């Protein structure tokens, strides 16, 4: 862990000013950043402790959307009454992740900002383009059973670890940020990025910008949704594959579909074309298998993780079946129906 400057601003404006240098990092729950500092992977010049900023409320906007303050804890968000009733897939995804202790500390904004998951990224003795641009990617040809099957590049095959973000992408969330140049709104599907030639950049946030809130329009899927997470143990493990699926179904015909995948790419993966192809189709396993194949049309394994392509296909089908049946996966019930 390196030496760093510590600042605890009282206003968003002060925080933005303090964050306006490339190696400054905002500190919220610290559940990922502090680990990375202990491993000597992150070496921030300055920690801007934003925990005193007034970004802790959950509100319903006049338009009926959900506005989540960046500092709302994962626990508070998952168990919020309105969220459980109207955005249940979000609640479910959060509860599928981490452990109660971590969710108590982790925040909504911090969840968006967690670094991608890769053994090599976390081990400074190995080459990693994300940690040290240009040094190479050790995961390619290495231990990579958890790595990306979609959207990877020659320089990085890491995956984004979040469950919450997968549901947010499926729900058309947008990320409200404030920076030296003012406020802007970033669609959730464009917040995280694919690695390309710049894997050191996980997202499209600019220097000095701070996430202030996340806005999610009210979905209209009723009970036709699910968050299905497949992992190496039944709790407290990152997803090998996760699927957020939601359908609007009218007399057996799909009117609208959302499918987002976790554990497959450098960002939560959403395929708008695949969703469109389901519109007007009757619910049924055959159509679900076709759409799964379509989503995975460019999937590529790295060796250890080849099985994830087939697993993803099956998880998509199962999740769509659950959504179609209106029987979302209960995260407390470890049997998958």
């Amino acid at each position: 862990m390196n030496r760093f400057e510590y600042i605890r601003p009282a206003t968003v404006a002060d925080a933005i000013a303090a964050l306006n240098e490339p190696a400054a990092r905002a500190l919220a729950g610290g559940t990922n950043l502090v680990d990375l500092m202990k491993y000597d992977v992150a070496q921030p010049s300055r920690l801007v402790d934003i925990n005193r900023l007034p970004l802790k409320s959950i509100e319903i906007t006049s338009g009926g959307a959900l506005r989540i303050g960046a500092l709302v804890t994962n626990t508070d968000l998952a168990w919020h009454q309105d969220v459980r009733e109207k955005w249940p897939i979000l609640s479910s995804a959060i509860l599928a992740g981490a452990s109660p202790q971590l969710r108590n500390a982790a925040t909504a904004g911090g969840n968006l900002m967690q670094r991608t998951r890769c053994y090599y990224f976390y081990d400074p003795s190995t080459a990693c383009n994300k940690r040290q641009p240009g040094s190479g990617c050790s995961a390619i040809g290495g231990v990579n059973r958890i790595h990306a099957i979609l959207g990877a590049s020659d320089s990085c095959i890491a995956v984004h670890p979040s469950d919450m973000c997968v549901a947010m992408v499926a729900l058309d969330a947008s990320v409200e940020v404030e920076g030296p140049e003012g406020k802007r709104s970033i669609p959730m599907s464009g917040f995280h990025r694919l690695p390309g030639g710049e894997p050191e950049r996980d997202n499209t946030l600019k220097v000095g910008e701070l996430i202030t809130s996340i806005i999610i329009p009210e979905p209209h899927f009723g009970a036709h949704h699910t968050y299905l997470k497949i992992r190496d143990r039944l709790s407290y493990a990152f997803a090998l594959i996760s699927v957020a699926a939601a359908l609007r179904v009218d007399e057996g015909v799909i009117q609208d579909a959302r499918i987002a995948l976790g554990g497959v790419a450098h960002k939560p993966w959403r395929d708008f074309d695949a969703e469109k192809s389901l519109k007007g189709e009757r619910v049924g396993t055959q159509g679900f298998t076709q759409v799964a194949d379509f989503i995975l049309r460019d999937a590529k394994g790295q060796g250890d993780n080849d099985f994830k392509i087939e697993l993803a296909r099956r998880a998509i089908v199962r999740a769509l079946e659950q959504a179609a049946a209106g029987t979302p996966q209960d995260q407390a019930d470890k049997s998958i129906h």
Partner: protein
Amino acid sequence: MSVGEITHIGRPTNRVDGRLKVTGQAHYAAEYPADDLLYGYIVGSTIAAGRIAAMHLDAARQFPGVVEIFTHENRSKAAWLDRSWRDEVAPPGHPFRPLHSDRILFDGQPVALIVAETFEAARDAGSLIRIAYDVDAHCTELEAKRAEAYVPPEQRSGIPPPPDPRGDAEQAFQDAPVKISRDYRVNAEHHNPMEMFATTCVFEGDGKLTIYDKTQGSQNAQGYVTSVFGLRSKDVRLVNHYVGGAFGAGLRPQHQLFFAVMASLELQRSVRVSLTRAQMFHIGYRPDSYHTVSLAADRDGRLQSIMHDAVASTSHYEDYQEAVVNWSGMMYHCDNVKLTYQLAKLDTATPCDMRAPGAAIGVTALECALDELSYELGIGPLEIRRINFASKDENTKKQFTSKALLECYSEGAAAFGWEKRSPKPRAMREGRELIGWGVSTGMWDAFLQKAQATATLKVDGTLEVATAASDIGTGTWTILTQIGAEAFGLPLEDVQARIGDSTLPMSPVEGGSWTAASNGSAVQAACDAVKHSLFKQARKMANSPLADASFEDVEVRDQRIFRKDDPARGLSVFEVMHAAELKEITEQGKVSPNLRQMLKYTSYTHSAVFAEVRVDEYLGVVRVTRVVCAAAAGKILNPKTARSQILGGVVMGIGMALHEEAMTDHRLGKIMNANLGEYHVPAHADIEDIEVIFVDEKDDKVSPLGVKGLGEIGIVGTASAVANAIFHATGVRVRDFPITIDKILNAPRPS
């Protein structure tokens, strides 16, 4: 309370140290305060084989708070001979010597110790050290070294080599009508107790050290320190009052002990060194292993041939050995047996005993193979085990002192509801999930080791019992208190156990499931000796009501010594001691194995493990929904802590079956998932119903207490029961542990 009534032994009893632990008052090695304490941080190598070419330490040296940096270039002088570094349980070879030379033997090998005024400064400075290496080729992949496997030339003390072949296993295999031959692999596992290894070395002055160390043997670790640093035994006291789990990793002294003592002696100050979680993966581990098991039977299911060939990993510098295949020669009756056990050298640290070393992997392979044979035969998997029950140890031709395994089968099966099992695989289903039931036998040694204890009866009637045992979470504090309380008919509050200190009476390391039998029997012997002394004093008294009694006629209870046939005739402990002008009576007790008995008898614990799994085969997800473990372990001193031991073993067995896997990048020779987020052990969600049954087993030979020990038996057979249940559920046989989702998805589907 009537005379002779059992009060404490056999009664479910809360841990006497439980309150201290949950309230944070029980100090672990890294928690002892010391004045003027320095903190050491270990820097590990980043290559698996080679030499250190250059170390750039200037930036680290100049870091504020850094006091000293030790490397192979400036380390203090330590013992020269290998034997000075060899601890009680060391395997043959050249024990690892931290900072001995520029040579790198494994990834993460300690190459520098930074000592600073704070832990943070030491760690931060550590990140500034730059090391240039001359890299040698390495190999960390057992598969690649199987062809070079060898029979260890020197046997590890206490570990029996495979028995000589009996009969003609190959011919019998040829001739038998039903047979299978299968390859299994059990991946390397890492102990990962919750408490990290740590040492606080308190520099007392006058050449004296008090060392608080996480170890399973205070005297073993103390002996290592005195021998390596040439210190006088009386100057070094080593304390391990509380140990936050160890599973075998604390049997041998770990690096941090060497470093804390070396730095303390060099700097003449107290020093603390703790390992990080990642560094916990660079110490000993359960070896990676491959097994070929060939079994043949007649059509009635009677075994005609057993062959088990195992290859396990070791390091380049030591031949770590455990009894892997021996079990295959004694678990079942068979006249034709051939067993081989070989090692292959990898560029890793030396493996280390891990809960049920040898049995946990060897029995797993055998029990899966027997399950496979049962399907070939069309005989139920429980039935085939009963058919082949071994009434004696056929490896040594000795009798078992007791073996209530058939009772384990029947009581376990009844509790589990085994008779409702459909014999065919894939025949039970609920919702999307296939249901499978599997069974396995478990077996572990019931050792008695040399141990000593003292008991001290005080004039106020309270008792103290002492032995240098360790309690690694097993319940030793509690059972020794119970044994003392039982001997003197006292409430538990009036008995104080003292353990975890090298200055106490001689104890073996806490391992092998022998502590309850060995230290417990020594404590009981010491208590008996005190009672004898008390009786002698009582009889000597003028007008003693016990003057005409013999020792057999009296009982000590509730701070009185009295005639069994007339409890009113007796004396209080106070009266006796007062008359004899004694403040206390202290006596010693000792036990050692009965060598004459051992010529004829051998002792083991046994178990039958029944597991239910539910498998979503489409997604490859396995849930272990029920386990029943029925164990025959002699007398159970404390059913509550005993049950906890079995529960822990079963959980660890489920981890072996489904989760635990060190993922090594063999290009780098480096374990990539060296943390508890990515090295998976079972989470609460993975554990459902576990039922523990102790079958009645009387054994008057195994130990003076009739106790066999329970630390290991819970894990043995659990992984195989789960694997066998997965086959029964799905018809898919995965022979590579852990059985992860990918292996279920990739396995050939049953036709």
